[in-house]
C-alpha cells in the first residue's frame, strides 16, 4: 500500500526530446472470465520516446501489449492514435495503423526468404499483377541497410540466428512505415554484442521519431536505453516517470512492491546428497547454452532455480532427465555416476520431471484421467493392467492433492488446468522418485490449486525427496526453496540461502549483475 504512494508522475516537459503523443492508452481494463488482469492502465508514447514497460510475470504486460496491438479488445478504456480514438479489431488493423509489434515468438515464416517475409501480405506487384521480385529484393536490401544489418535478403528465414530474425522483424516494421514499435523482451535470447546492436537500432528508430514501447526484465538495460518507464504490478500501473530520476534498485522495488513471503525455515539441514552436478555443459553451442554449471542437491531439500526465459533452467532439467544429450560434465545420483540417455533410464533411477508446458508435454488430452495418471512406464506393472488398482492409487493422491475431477474415467481435457497439473504431479509421485524436478509447477494454475501444489512440494521434501524447482514466479521460489540458484545466459550467477534472499537481489542476479559476494561454484 505504502508503495502506491510512491507512484510518480513525470514532470511536464521532463522528457527533452519529446515529440507529439502518438499512441496513448486511457484507463484500459481487461477481464478474463471475471478475473481482472488489467485495471485502469494509462500510458502514452511520444514520437522519439523509448518507454520501458516493466513488471513481474503476470503483472499484465502481455495483456497491455495485446490491447495496443489489436490482439485483444479492452473491456473498458480506449486506445488513441494522434488523439483520435481507434478500435483495432485485429492485429492486421494495428499493422495498418502503423503500430508494429515484435513479439517473443517471431511471426516470421521459416520457409520463406528474408525479402519475402518482409513483404508478406503486401508484396509489391507489377502492372501484370505478378510479384515484382526485383522491387521486393531492392526494398528489402534498403530496409536492412537502414538497420546496418548485413543480411542477404535471399536467405531463408529459418536459417537465420535469433538475433538476425529479430532484425528482420524490425525491418518488417520499417517497411510498414510503423510509427509505433512495441518490443516484447527483445533481448531475452541475445548475446551481449547482439544486444548492443539492437540498442543502437532502437535509439536510431527513436531518433527518426518512432515511439518505442520496450518490455524487458533486465533493469540495467532499461536504465541504459530507455527515457521513461511505466511499471505494472497486479494489473495496475503503479509507477511512472523518467528513467533519469531512478536507478535499477528503485525500479526493482516498484516491480516487487508487495510484502515478500518469508523464506522457508531452512529444514532439518537436509540429508545425503541426491544429485551432484559438476561442470555441466550443453551439447549445442547456441548463445545462452548451459555452460559450466555445478551444484548439489540433498535429500529433503528444495533447490530453486531462478532466471529469465532462455537462461538455461529448463535445459538443465532436460539434461538431468535424459531428454537432451549432455555436452560435457558429470552427474551423480545418490553417489553413483549418472548419464541418462533417455527419460526411461532417468525414471528407472528415480528421477521424475513435471514439465513446464502442460498442454504440450504433460497431459494426453485424448486420454482419460486414470490413463494420464498411469502413463509412465513402471516395472511394477503386471499383465493384465489393473485399472481398479490404478484408480485406488490415484484416489489416494486425489485426496492429498484436493483433486477435483468429474470422475477418473472422464477425459482429462475436462479438468481445469490446475487439476490437470495435479494429475501430472500424482503420476510422478506414484513412482516415489528420489529426485523430483518441477518446471513452472504453478503456471496457469488458479490460486487455490497453487496453494495445494505448494503444500505438496513441501510435504515431499519433508519426506526426504530432493526437489529441484524451476520457476519464474519469484515469490514462489522464495517461499518454497531452501537455497536458490540464479542463472543468466546459461551460467550460474549466484547462490543464495532463501532466508537471506530478496526479490530485488534475485532479480539483479538474473539480470546478470555479479553477486556480492561473487558466486562460487559448489565443489563436488
Amino acid at each position, binding site marked *: 500500500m505504502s508503495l502506491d504512494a510512491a507512484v510518480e508522475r513525470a514532470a511536464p516537459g521532463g522528457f527533452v526530446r519529446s515529440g507529439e503523443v502518438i499512441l496513448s492508452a486511457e484507463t484500459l481494463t481487461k477481464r478474463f472470465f*471475471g478475473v481482472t488482469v488489467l485495471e485502469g492502465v494509462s500510458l502514452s508514447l511520444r514520437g522519439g520516446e523509448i518507454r520501458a514497460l516493466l513488471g513481474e510475470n503476470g503483472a499484465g504486460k502481455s495483456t497491455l501489449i495485446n490491447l495496443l496491438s489489436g490482439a485483444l479488445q479492452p473491456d473498458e478504456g480506449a486506445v488513441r492514435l494522434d488523439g483520435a480514438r481507434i478500435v483495432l479489431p485485429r492485429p492486421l488493423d494495428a499493422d495498418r495503423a502503423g503500430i508494429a509489434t515484435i513479439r517473443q515468438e517471431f511471426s516470421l515464416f521459416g520457409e520463406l526468404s528474408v525479402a519475402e517475409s518482409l513483404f508478406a501480405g503486401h508484396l509489391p506487384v507489377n502492372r501484370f499483377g505478378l510479384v515484382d521480385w526485383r522491387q521486393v529484393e531492392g526494398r528489402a536490401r534498403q530496409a536492412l541497410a537502414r538497420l546496418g544489418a548485413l543480411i542477404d535478403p535471399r536467405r531463408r528465414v529459418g536459417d537465420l540466428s535469433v538475433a538476425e530474425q529479430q532484425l528482420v522483424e524490425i525491418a518488417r516494421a520499417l517497411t510498414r512505415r510503423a510509427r509505433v514499435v512495441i518490443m516484447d523482451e527483445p533481448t531475452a535470447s541475445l548475446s551481449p554484442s547482439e544486444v548492443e546492436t539492437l540498442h543502437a537500432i532502437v535509439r536510431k528508430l527513436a531518433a527518426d521519431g518512432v515511439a518505442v514501447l520496450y518490455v524487458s526484465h533486465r533493469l540495467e538495460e532499461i536504465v541504459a536505453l530507455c527515457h521513461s518507464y511505466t511499471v505494472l504490478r497486479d494489473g495496475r500501473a503503479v509507477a511512472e516517470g523518467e528513467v533519469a530520476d531512478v536507478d535499477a534498485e528503485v525500479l526493482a522495488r516498484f516491480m516487487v512492491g508487495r510484502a515478500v513471503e518469508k523464506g522457508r525455515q531452512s529444514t532439518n539441514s537436509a540429508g545425503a546428497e541426491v544429485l551432484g552436478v559438476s561442470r555441466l555443459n550443453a551439447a549445442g553451442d547456441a548463445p545462452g547454452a548451459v555452460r559450466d554449471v555445478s551444484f548439489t542437491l540433498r535429500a529433503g531439500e528444495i533447490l530453486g532455480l531462478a532466471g529469465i526465459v532462455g537462461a538455461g533452467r529448463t535445459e538443465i532439467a532436460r539434461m538431468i*532427465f535424459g*531428454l537432451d544429450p549432455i555436452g560435457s560434465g558429470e552427474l551423480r545420483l545418490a553417489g553413483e555416476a549418472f548419464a541418462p540417455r*533417455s*527419460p*526411461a533410464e*532417468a*525414471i*528407472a533411477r528415480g528421477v521424475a*520431471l513435471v*514439465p513446464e508446458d502442460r498442454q*504440450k*508435454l*504433460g*497431459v*494426453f*488430452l*485424448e*486420454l482419460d484421467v486414470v*490413463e494420464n495418471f*498411469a*502413463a*509412465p*512406464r513402471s516395472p511394477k*506393472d503386471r*499383465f*493384465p*493392467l489393473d485399472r481398479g488398482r490404478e484408480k485406488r492409487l490415484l484416489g489416494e493422491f486425489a485426496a492429498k492433492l484436493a483433486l477435483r475431477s*468429474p470422475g477418473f474415467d*472422464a*477425459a482429462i*481435457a*475436462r479438468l481445469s488446468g490446475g487439476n490437470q497439473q495435479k494429475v501430472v504431479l500424482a*503420476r510422478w509421485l506414484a513412482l516415489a522418485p528420489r529426485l523430483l524436478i518441477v518446471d513452472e509447477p504453478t503456471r496457469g494454475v488458479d490460486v487455490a490449486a497453487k496453494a495445494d501444489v505448494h503444500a505438496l512440494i513441501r510435504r515431499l521434501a519433508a519426506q526426504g525427496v530432493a526437489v529441484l524447482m524451476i520457476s519464474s514466479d519469484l515469490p514462489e521460489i522464495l517461499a518454497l526453496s531452501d537455497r536458490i540458484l540464479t542463472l543468466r545466459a546459461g551460467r550460474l550467477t549466484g547462490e543464495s540461502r532463501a532466508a537471506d534472499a530478496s526479490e530485488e537481489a534475485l532479480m539483479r542476479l538474473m539480470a546478470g549483475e555479479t553477486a556480492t559476494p561473487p558466486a562460487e561454484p559448489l565443489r563436488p
Partner: protein
Amino acid sequence: MTVSASLTARRSVSLAALFARLAPAIFLALLIVLFTALAPRFFSALNLFNVLRQVSIYGILAVGMTFVILTRGIDLSVGALAALAGAVAAVVAKGHADTRFVLPFFPEGLPWEFAALAAILTGGLGGLIQGIIIARLGVPSFVVTLGGMTVFRGLTLIVGNGGPIAGFDADFGWWGRGLIGPVPVPVIVFALVAVVAAVVLGATRYGRSVYAVGANPEAARLCGIDRAKVETSVYALTGLAAGLGGFLLASRLNSAEAVAGSQYELTVIAAVVIGGASLYGGRGGIGGTLVGTLLIGVLLNGLVILNVSPYVQQLLIGAIIVGAVTFDVFIKRQFR
C-alpha cells in the same frame, strides 16, 4: 457461473461423448433393421455368415491398421503386402510358381503350416522395414507406405512371374473355405485376432503406450516410453496381420494373384475410421474397428441384395467415410 450450471454443462458434454462413441454401433443397428425390412432374406443365418466371411480378411487387416492409426500413422501398403504374402505362401505350398521359379530343396512344396508361416513372416518383415523407415528415419508414414504399396506389388509380380499361382491341396484350402460347424474358418481366425488385439491394447503396458504415443508423442517420451520402438512395432504388427490376411485370401481364392487385395487399404482404413478411431491419434479401439468393419460388410451385402447399382454402392461408401471423419472432427472440436 453457478456450480450446478457448470455440472449440467459437464454432464451434457459427457452425454455427447457417449453418443459419439456409440454412434457407429447405432448406425450399424439401424442399417441391419433397414435392410431386413427391405429384404427379409438379409437377416438369414446363411446370409449373415456370408457377410462375416466377406469381411473377415478386411477385418484382420483393420485390426492391424487400428494400431497404426492410434499412433497417428497410416499404412497404405496392407493390400499389396497381403498379395505378396499370398504369393509367397503359394510358392511354399506348391514348390514353384511356374517353371522358372522353383523353391530350393523343396520342389514339391511344403505343408500348409510352412506356407502360412512364410506368409505371416513376409508380412511382418515388410511391415517392420517400413516401420523402421518411418519411426527411426522420420519419413512420413503416408509416403513410406505409398512407396511400399508399389514395391510389394512389384515383388508379387516377380514372385509369380506376372501370373496367378493356383491350385492348392485341401488342407491349404480349408483355411479360406472351410467351416467349423456353421461358421466359416476365416471368421473364427478374425475373431481370435480381434480378441488378442483387444487384450493387448486394453490390458497391457504396450497397448497403453500405443495410445500415449498417438495422443501426445512428446509427453509419451517424457513418460519414459520409447516412441520409435512403439511406432516401429505398430507397422510390424500390421504387416503380420497383412501376411495372415494374404494367406487366407490365397486359400479362399485357391489362387495367389498379383492383383489380389487391390484397394483393400482403402476399405480397411475406412473401417477403422468409421469405427471411431481418430486420424489425429490416441482415440479408437478394436471394438470400434469391429463395428466399422461390419458396417462396411453389411452395407456392401445389403446393397447387393437390394440390387443397387455398384456405381451407387461406391458413392455411398465414399460419402459415409467423409461423413464419419467429419463427425470425428466435429466431436473433437466440442472437447476443446
